[in-house]
Structures are given as structure tokens and as C-alpha cells.
């Protein structure tokens, strides 16, 4: 207790210096958290957008499909099969089937390459809110031969609600796929490329069109908790009943996205490293002067009978308190700031909008509140200060009492 009192009083020997050090730790933590939050926020958005509108967090495919993503390798899976999956793997909340193939789509006069996608609308909407992207009409009215198409495709083909669309392509194992459909809805697909190509139709209708009954290209597996996707994939791949199928995580299906994120993280890490070094030297400077200017006093304390170990405890506690305060205040300051930006993302300039839209993202900088990086940053800054405290501790153990007293 006396040691703590001593440390505490020593800390406030030079109030200004201590506050400057605490503030530098505070701002380091604040800045690091801000950067991390922004970084993670944009990554989360990126993953969400890309994953939601493309592969899903986990996906089940025919074993051949991964290498040759063609309708010929579509897997057999009907309603019963989907229900069995839910029974077999309780981590999975629901599945989202898709049967998709490229085909020509023609309006009155123009023709475009289109991306014909058979969906279970309810499952699809539950997964990615595609219904919210509907701009005109309905997502199917229950009539025959209905399609909902991307606004971009509609514009390119000069189509509006009620017009007919002719699809011509190849179905399962070379079967001819041709049909005439009526446009009942227009969606603004968030992925620009897909907005110009997408043609949604009910799953059974696509199966009929492509002559692929009970088949789907893949099933998205949506776990109850999104971060359990790896567990779900591992469970399926380990189950002998599913030998003909193969499950993948989004990381396996989208290595480019993983790379982009890693690259992004490396950039932030570089910046943080520089920040850590700068802050580290700042704290070190304070600790250095705090130590050197007191060597004489240390000498007296050891002379009168204070064990070096106890004295080391005092200087250790001093640095500990200083950094603890810095880290805690930094986190305390970061929380309101990050909360604000979490609810009010920073809008990006006009120029960015197009670029961001390429990835199907809103042109805003989103922030993450993932608690994980809060304590990660805290631990790192704390670790740095622990490395720094080694200096005065070593100094205390090496101190030559007689020399110190003579100074």
C-alpha cells in the first residue's frame, strides 16, 4: 500500500508531464480505434455486400461444380433435401437455393446476354432483402412465366412492366432452353454489372426452363450466427451422407475478396505500427526522464534499506497507472466518437460513388463496433508500455548506489 502511495505521488510530481504522457496514450488508442473501426467497418460492408449478393457465407455445391461452374454440374436437391439439411445441421437456420445460367435475353428489338436466376423468393429475400431493391411492379404475382429483371437490363432492352422477354439458351446437359416471359417487376440490383444482366424467376420455373428438375447450382447455407459459417462447412464436409456434395466458406469461394481485405488490413497495420512507434518513444521519453532525475533518490532508498525489488515495483506501478489511465481514457473517448460515426457514416465525395458502386457499396465510410478490436488495441498499447517499463526496472536493478549518491 505504501508502495502504491509512493508510485501515485511520484506520478503527480510533474503533473503536466504525466498528463502529456497519458494524453499521448489516449490519442494513440483513440486514433488506433478510429482507424480500426473505419477499416473493419468498410470490410464488414464489403463482405456483407459481396457475400450477400453473390456466394453467401457458406455454400453447398456438387463436388464438380467448384472447378466448372456450369449448370451441367448442378446438384440434385429438392424441398425434402433442403429440409433434411436443416435437420442434419442444426447450426443452419435456412438455405437459399439458386439455379442459374447465362442465356440470351431479347426484348422487342434488342438482345443482351443475361444472367437467368431461379430463386426461392422468400429465402432469397430473407437472406439479402432483394425485395427492398424492387423499384417497380412485384416480385412475382403468382401468374405463369413471370420474371423480375434488373433496371439496367430493362433500360438496355427498352422493357417496362408488362412487356415480354424472350430467353434463349442452353439447359441442363445440352437441352435447349427457350421461353417467353412477362416482366412483372424491376429491381435496382446493388451490383452494377448484375443490374444490367439479372433476370429473376421462381426456382421451379427456371428448373423447367433449363430442364433441370429438382436441381440447383448451389445452396447458400445461412447459419443462425453468421460467424459459425466455418463450423457449418466443416460439419457438412465431415458427414458421409453428403459425400457427393462439397461445402465452402465465402473465403474459399472469394479469394480475391479475402486478398483485398488482407491488403487493406496490412495498410492499416503499417500505419498503426508507425503510430505505436511514435507513441512508444513518447512514453519512453517520459519514463526515461522520470527515472534519470530520480537516480539519487533511488540510491538513498536502497541505502536506507529498500530492496531493489520493491523499488522496481514502484517504478513499474507508475508506468502501469499512467498507461492504464491512457488506455482507459482512450477507450472512453473512442466509444462516443465511434458510436456517432457508426450511426452517421461519413459520406464520400461524388467521385467515389461510382467506384464504390462497382462493388455494390454505398458511398459512405462505415464504422465497426466489433468489441474484439477494442481490447486488441488496448492490449497492444498496454504491451508497448510494458516493454517500456523494462527500462526503469532494469535501471533500478543495475543502479550503483554509491555512484548515484555522489551525483
Amino acid at each position, binding site marked *: 500500500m*505504501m508502495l502504491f502511495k*509512493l508510485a501515485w*505521488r*511520484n506520478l*503527480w*510530481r510533474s503533473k503536466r508531464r504525466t498528463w502529456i504522457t497519458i494524453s499521448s496514450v489516449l490519442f494513440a488508442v483513440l486514433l488506433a480505434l478510429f482507424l480500426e473501426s473505419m477499416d473493419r467497418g468498410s470490410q464488414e460492408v464489403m463482405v456483407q455486400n459481396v457475400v450477400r449478393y453473390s456466394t453467401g457465407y457458406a455454400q453447398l455445391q456438387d463436388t464438380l461444380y467448384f472447378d466448372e461452374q456450369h449448370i451441367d454440374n448442378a446438384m440434385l436437391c429438392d424441398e425434402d433435401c433442403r429440409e433434411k439439411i436443416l435437420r442434419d445441421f442444426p447450426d443452419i437456420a435456412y438455405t437459399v437455393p439458386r439455379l442459374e445460367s447465362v442465356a440470351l435475353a431479347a426484348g422487342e428489338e434488342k438482345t443482351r446476354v443475361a444472367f437467368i436466376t431461379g430463386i426461392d423468393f422468400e429465402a432469397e429475400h430473407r437472406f439479402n432483402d432483394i425485395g427492398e431493391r424492387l423499384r417497380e411492379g412485384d416480385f412475382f404475382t403468382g401468374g405463369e412465366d413471370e420474371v423480375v429483371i434488373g433496371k439496367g437490363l430493362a433500360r438496355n432492352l427498352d422493357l417496362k412492366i408488362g412487356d415480354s422477354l424472350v430467353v434463349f439458351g442452353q439447359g441442363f446437359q445440352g437441352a435447349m432452353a427457350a421461353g417467353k416471359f412477362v416482366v412483372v417487376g424491376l429491381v435496382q440490383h446493388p451490383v452494377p454489372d448484375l443490374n444490367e444482366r439479372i433476370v429473376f424467376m421462381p426456382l421451379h420455373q427456371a428448373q423447367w426452363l433449363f430442364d433441370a428438375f429438382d436441381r440447383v447450382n448451389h445452396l447458400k447455407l445461412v447459419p443462425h450466427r453468421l460467424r459459425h459459417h466455418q463450423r457449418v462447412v466443416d460439419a457438412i464436409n465431415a458427414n458421409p451422407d453428403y459425400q457427393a456434395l462439397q461445402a465452402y466458406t465465402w473465403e474459399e469461394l472469394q479469394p480475391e475478396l479475402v486478398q483485398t481485405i488482407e491488403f487493406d488490413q496490412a495498410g492499416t497495420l503499417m500505419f498503426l505500427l508507425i503510430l505505436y512507434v511514435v507513441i512508444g518513444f513518447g512514453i519512453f521519453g517520459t519514463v526515461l526522464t522520470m527515472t534519470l532525475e530520480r537516480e*539519487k*533518490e533511488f540510491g*538513498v*532508498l*536502497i*541505502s*536506507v*534499506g*529498500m*530492496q*531493489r525489488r*520493491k523499488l522496481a515495483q514502484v517504478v513499474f506501478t507508475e508506468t502501469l497507472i499512467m498507461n492504464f489511465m491512457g488506455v482507459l481514457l482512450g477507450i472512453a473517448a473512442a466509444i462516443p466518437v465511434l458510436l456517432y460515426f457508426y450511426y452517421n457514416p461519413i459520406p464520400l465525395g461524388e467521385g467515389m460513388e461510382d467506384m464504390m458502386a462497382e462493388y455494390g457499396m454505398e458511398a459512405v465510410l462505415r464504422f465497426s463496433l466489433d468489441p474484439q478490436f477494442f481490447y486488441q488495441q488496448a492490449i497492444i498499447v498496454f504491451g508497448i508500455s510494458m516493454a517500456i517499463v523494462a527500462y526503469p526496472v532494469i535501471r533500478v536493478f543495475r543502479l550503483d*548506489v*554509491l555512484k548515484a*549518491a555522489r551525483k
Partner: protein
Amino acid sequence: MPVIETNGLYKIYNEDTVPVYAVNNISIQFDPKEFTCVIGPSGSGKSTLLNLIGGLDTPSRGTVTVAGQRIETMSESERIRFRLEHIGFVFQHYNLIPVLTAYENAAFIMQLQARPEEEIRERVTGLLEQVGLGGRFNSRPSELSGGEQQRVAVVRALASKPDFILADEPTANLDTKAAFNLLDMMKQLNEDEGITFLFSTHDQRVIERAGRVVTLVDGALHSDERKS
């Protein structure tokens, strides 16, 4: 039995090149309750001798026995422990911890010894009042005069009732009046508490108050006079 006994004590610097005999073959004893002053020209080895006796320095040769224990063979941490339990120190300056009050400084050693808080309060309060610092308990060292600071240092050294108190030029930074006051106070405590004092000084007038005067020249014992 003497409190302090040295035998054939040497401290030699640069033994391999140009040897400096800072302490040169000193064998001396100090008895309980003695009030001894070590004098000698600058560089005669006063500080070195006191440091050897206090276990702050290790001799090149010879032995130092304090309270029946050989201290020159102890490990550093044992010596620190021994100092805490057996020896009180008063230095020339920079004695006190600047962030602690007069009272806390005076209580410091007893607290390091983990004595009961009640005992500490009684003892330290009594001593501080006795040396005329009754009203300055909560003053920081920077708020005390040099003489007051040294008095707190003496109380700190004395409070734990060590076997003896070592003071290397305790009056060097004090004006004459403060120096006399400190010496009178030390003398008084020496009589009241029966604690052995061993101090060094340059000050001729201070010497007159000592019961025994040991003179060093070039590290060797030159004279040793006891007054009755």
C-alpha cells in the same frame, strides 16, 4: 561487545595500476552509546570508511562486523535487509523523498519494516515533537529548511531503533546555527535513546560536541581520542 568492529580493513582503488588506498588497514571498534566523529582532510577516506561500515560498499580486504554479524560477506540483498533492520542513515543531502510529507518520511523505515501502524504513529509523532517539528507533520521536504530536513532524516534513521546511526557530513549543507542545533539534537537522542552515532564532518565547532574523535589521514587511522 562493540557494536561495530573492523579488522584490517582496506579499500583500494585501481589496485592493478596506480593503487589508491582510500581506506588503509583500519582496525577499530565502536561501543554502544558512543557518539563518535570521524574527521580528516578531504579525500582522507571518511566517506569510504562509513560506507564500508554501513554495508554500502565492500572492502578490498578485511572484515566488518556489525552487531555480531559479518556484513562484508553478505549478498547485496542480505545487506539491504541488514541495513534496514540494523543501521540508520543520514546523508549530507537529498535524504528525504520529495513526494512524502515530513511525517511519512520519518515513518518510512518503520513502514518498510512493516511495523504495526499504531507503533509507528506513536514513535514517529513523539520523536518529531521532541525535535521541534510538531507543527510540520504534513509539510513536504521542499517546504522545510535544510536543518528541519536533516532533523526529519535523523528521526527517520532513529525511529526504528537501529544498532547505530551513520551520518556522512550531516551538517555540511547547514548554516552554523542549524548545524549546532542538529548536533545538539543528535547528542540528546544519543543520550535519551542510547543509540550509537558515528558521523563525519569538516566542521571544527561540531567536533567539540563529539565524545570521541577519530582522525583519518590518507585512509589510515591517524588518531583516536576519547573525551571523558
